[in-house]
């Protein structure tokens, strides 16, 4: 099944265009022939029951699935006019431009400063002024005020929520256009989760955000567009209001009403 949805991109070029993307882990299909358009400077939520393929889809958007043993990807992901799976494309560069934040905050051993500086060092994208870019990135991730006096202390000493925002800062430092967030708040308490949501909304001004969440309220709160996946298929994709209040598909309606109560 191949489905394309017309999404109003507000006259701007889409940030990302997925065409007939399928992902197999071994012989098991995780994502089946999904096509969708991600508008620039918007938040797109990927929702659906566990195992519906939303994380598999997300990990295919910056070639993180390349690192998963047995993963096989077909189809196209167009970014800046080019398919990121073209043979000549360097996956490391794709990941620099399409950053990712994971379910479990994974700061590197070492200081807060070093966590943000690592990506800048390996990609050489700090333009010679490492500390300035580190500060900017921490400010963008709404963490600077909390850590500016202890930049050289271990990142392990931060709270879980702060660690997750550090991971956002780290990702922003290398200059991405798109930020992928894979259930970024599922390990956090409600207060810390809320701060991540606020952060995601603020990031819209400069970035495009694609967020996987199992929390329907979260999808409703933060996203502009929602894609509902089931059994690896894209069931429905459209403006979040529409998907939540008057879904076209019965499967969407029963899931949404079941989860929102």
């Amino acid at each position, binding site marked *: 099944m191949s489905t394309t949805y017309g999404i109003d991109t507000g006259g701007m070029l889409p940030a990302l265009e997925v065409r007939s993307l399928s992902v197999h882990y071994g012989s098991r299909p995780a994502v089946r022939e999904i096509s969708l358009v991600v508008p620039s400077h918007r938040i797109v939520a990927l929702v659906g029951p566990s195992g519906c393929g939303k994380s598999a889809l997300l990990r295919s958007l*910056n070639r993180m699935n390349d690192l998963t043993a047995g993963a096989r990807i077909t189809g196209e992901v167009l970014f800046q006019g080019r398919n990121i799976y073209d043979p000549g494309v360097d996956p490391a560069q794709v990941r620099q431009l399409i950053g990712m934040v994971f379910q479990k905050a994974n*700061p590197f*051993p*070492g200081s807060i400063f070093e966590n943000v500086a*690592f990506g800048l*060092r390996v990609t050489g994208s700090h333009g010679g002024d490492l500390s300035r870019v580190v500060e900017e990135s921490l400010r963008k991730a709404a963490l600077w005020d909390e850590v500016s006096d202890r930049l050289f202390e*271990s990142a392990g000493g931060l709270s879980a929520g702060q660690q997750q925002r550090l991971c956002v800062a780290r990702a922003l430092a290398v200059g991405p256009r798109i930020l992928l967030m894979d259930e970024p708040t599922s390990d956090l308490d409600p207060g810390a989760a809320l701060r991540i949501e606020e952060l995601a909304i603020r990031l819209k001004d400069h970035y495009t955000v694609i967020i996987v969440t199992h929390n329907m309220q979260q999808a409703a709160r933060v996203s502009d567009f929602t894609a509902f996946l089931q059994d690896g298929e894209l069931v429905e994709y459209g403006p979040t209001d529409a998907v939540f209040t008057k879904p076209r598909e019965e499967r969407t309606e029963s899931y949404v009403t079941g989860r929102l109560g």
Partner: protein
Amino acid sequence: MDRAFRLLVGGAAFLVLFAPVVLLADVLVDGMGYISGHFFTNYASRFPERAGIRAPLLGTLWTLGLTGILSIPVSVGAAVYLEEYAPRTRVSRMIQANIANLAGIPSIVYGILGLALFVQALDLGRSVLAGALTLSILIMPVIILEAQEALRSVPPGLREGAYALGASRWQVVRHQVLPLALPGILSGSVRALSRAAGEAAPLLMIGVLSFIAFTPESPGDPFTVLPIQVFTWVSRPREEFQGLAAAAIIVLLGLIFAMNVLAIVIRNRLRPRA
């Protein structure tokens, strides 16, 4: 029933502890009297009161140093390849199974290989280099397995985090994985070397001499090692040589014990803070 089982396993644990303690005590009683300054500085002699372990002690240190230099870099490289680079294919699984098998091969078999390959084919003679190469291929599978274990203990989330920032495979390995795995790799390497320190069989096989009245000055020189000196002295009839053998065992055990302590210290001290 419960108590009987408890007694049984308790007894087993006691035996495991008891046997080496008795052995060690016996060696200490026999050998301590022979340990003195000139025991370390003298060469072997047919007069027990003049005999020392200068040649085998320095020979052991030479061999271990060279074995470490030869085996550790190659083994770590192989472990990094298998853990971080190799695709999980049938071929890599076969290599993996073979490394585990190699680690279980009796050391004397490596001696035969060393004799044929290094002493004869490569014409290295009964040199320190030939001995170190033989011990290297003996302990390389062990170091590879230990290094793989250390690499596997690095949390996968750390690799993902680094890759997601646009780091290349080499950068991920060099800057995130290796620093975290290094203490485990080093301590595993030192433990493997301490095993090599006690090996006599493969070196007897390549024909290492038992009586040497000089110390090696380059990798091409002939040499002997402590286990072989022990073996030689034990096979002498005079009782004093039994005491000298015990004294050499004490030195050898002291060396191996020190290496194992070093391995533990490396593991605990160098562990990066989380």
